[in-house]
């Protein structure tokens, strides 16, 4: 069996779908966040696989930027969760419905 | 003498033997360092330390301790998260042992000369933090949790000055491969990176050494396991074999940070003077690393422990700006010289 681009893409698609399922089914803000990270990693995997396929380092550079953005996003996101917890004593996002009509 | 049908498996055999040798070396080092630390601390306090076990200066004390730990009852606290509690020592120990794969003991004596060697060590050592957090959390004990949180904060912060100061020899070599960094320092101690393009690399060496003390939780940065306030930090609840794993990882890390300092700043396995090259490389390398380990022990009995706020102050307000400025100046220096 020769491993080619398609195998990596299928794996990335599966991981991405698992992340989507996590975001849609869980209510704990931290686990939703973890699922988003899972989706980002699936995308990273696809980028690196494409970089390998076309022999172009550009895909890897994109992964570098995605990781940088993920770091900034996690720092701010977790700060929001901490503030949320201080105010409402919960991280269940169904209970955070102040702006919902 | 070796049948030709076996020749394809020869590299595999060699790497298996090498791996076994390195693991054996780690165990021997930990036994020796344990005894040595007792002796060093005893003599610094005008005591004798272990004298009875085994005869000559209590040489078998560490061995006896190891056997005692192996035979001890394995206790898991009732309120602990059993799975995580069992897993944590292995994560910490693996993270520590994995670093040895790229430590260059001699001219050809390296597990694998990765082209991202130095970066790899930083990467695997960052996995140790996860294991420590697991241990502290799973113990379900407030001392353990405090220790783990302090340790995580400390190790994540100090990784930055460590990485920044390791970049300076990398800039001077133009490679991250351990063997190439060693090869670039050939010919006498004045070619070692500590003394070349001084004072930048000297500052980098000093910052690396201090920050690496924080990475391995040694005094004066041992607040995660400060015995007088936190019992023993994140491994308070561990006993027997599981405690021994943490102990192995801790001393293994002591050797790794010293070995990296020896590799990138002190010429690795290169002799002190070119005339002394009849002494084999591994002896030079282990000797240099052991000297740095000795300095770590020396500092332990010389300096008081820092407070948490002082620790963060030192890292973010002193080491970080100096390491950054240093890095920029070395870059400028390299551009101007070439």
């Amino acid at each position, binding site marked *: *069996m*020769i*491993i*080619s*681009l*398609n195998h990596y*893409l299928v794996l990335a*698609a599966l*991981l991405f779908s*698992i992340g*989507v*399922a996590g*975001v*849609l*089914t*869980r*209510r*704990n803000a*931290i*686990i939703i966040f*973890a699922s988003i990270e*899972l989706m980002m*990693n699936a995308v990273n*995997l696809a980028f690196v696989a494409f970089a*390998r*396929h076309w*022999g*172009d*380092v550009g895909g*890897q*550079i994109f*992964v570098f*930027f995605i*990781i940088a953005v993920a*770091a*900034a*996003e*996690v*720092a*701010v996101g*977790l700060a929001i*969760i*901490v503030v949320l*917890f201080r105010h409402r004593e919960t991280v269940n996002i*169904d209970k955070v419905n102040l702006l919902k009509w | 003498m070796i049948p030709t049908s076996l020749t394809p498996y020869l590299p595999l055999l060699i790497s298996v033997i090498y791996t076994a040798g390195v693991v054996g070396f780690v165990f021997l080092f930990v036994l020796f360092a344990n005894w040595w630390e007792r002796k060093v601390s005893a003599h610094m306090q005008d005591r004798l330390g272990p004298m009875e076990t085994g005869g000559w200066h209590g040489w078998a004390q560490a061995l006896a301790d190891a056997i005692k730990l192996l035979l001890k009852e394995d206790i898991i606290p009732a309120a602990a998260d059993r799975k*995580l509690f069992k897993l944590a020592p292995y994560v910490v120990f693996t993270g520590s042992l994995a670093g040895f794969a790229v430590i260059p003991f001699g001219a050809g004596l390296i597990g694998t000369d990765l082209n*991202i060697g130095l*970066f790899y060590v930083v*990467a695997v050592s*960052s*996995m140790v*933090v*996860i294991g420590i*957090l*697991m241990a*502290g959390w799973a113990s379900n004990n407030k001392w353990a*949790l405090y220790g783990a*949180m302090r340790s995580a*904060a400390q190790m*994540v912060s100090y990784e930055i000055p460590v990485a920044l100061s390791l970049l300076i020899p990398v800039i001077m070599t133009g490679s991250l491969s351990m063997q190439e960094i060693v090869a670039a320092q050939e010919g006498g101690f004045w070619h070692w990176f500590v003394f070349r393009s001084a004072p930048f690399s000297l500052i980098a060496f000093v910052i690396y050494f201090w920050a690496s003390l924080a990475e391995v939780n040694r005094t004066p940065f041992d607040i995660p396991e400060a015995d007088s306030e936190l019992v023993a930090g994140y491994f308070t609840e561990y006993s027997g074999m599981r405690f021994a794993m943490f102990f192995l990882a801790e001393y293994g890390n002591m050797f790794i940070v010293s070995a990296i300092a020896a590799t990138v700043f002190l010429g690795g396995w290169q002799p002190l003077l070119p005339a002394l090259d009849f002494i084999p490389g591994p002896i030079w390398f282990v000797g240099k690393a052991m000297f740095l380990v000795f300095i770590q022990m020396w500092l332990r009995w010389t300096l008081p422990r820092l407070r948490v706020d002082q620790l963060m102050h030192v890292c973010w307000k002193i080491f970080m700006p100096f390491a950054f400025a240093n890095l920029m100046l070395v870059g400028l220096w390299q551009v101007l010289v070439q």
Partner: protein
Amino acid sequence: MEAFFFLLLAVVSIFSGLMVILQKSPVASVLFLVLTLVCVAALFVMLSAPFIAAIQVIIYAGAIMVLFLFVLMLLNLQRFTEGAWSRFQITGVVVAAVLAVVTALLLRAVPLPADSGFLRETPGLGSVEAVGLSLFTEYLLPFEIASFLLLAGIIGAVILSRRRP
């Protein structure tokens, strides 16, 4: 050999990915995410991107996940496991399954060039040199923008989590 390692890593990463969303306790979930990240890093090495793999382990597993665990332990969120699942649980699973099937079908339908092996063999593809050169020439502007984004992230996190008197 390559196929074996790919299958092993793929199975482990999918298993741990599933455990991320199936575990009740957030700490276990985040630890399984660490396992997934390490598997993906190993796949990066197989795709000749060792530098990116090291970055992944250092930044993701070593820093971001530590931040997750830190927040979980700081807030002691382990207590909050009630109401773990959404009301739209079944819908969510169906949507994700449809997404997976559609993506798989699309991958089959789009004729990707060269179904056997990779298209090009580029020596030194993911080396530090190649990544660095590309990053500091072609992608210099995005690099600077990313650094500004990180600065904004730091300031945002500090301001958000500061206790107001």
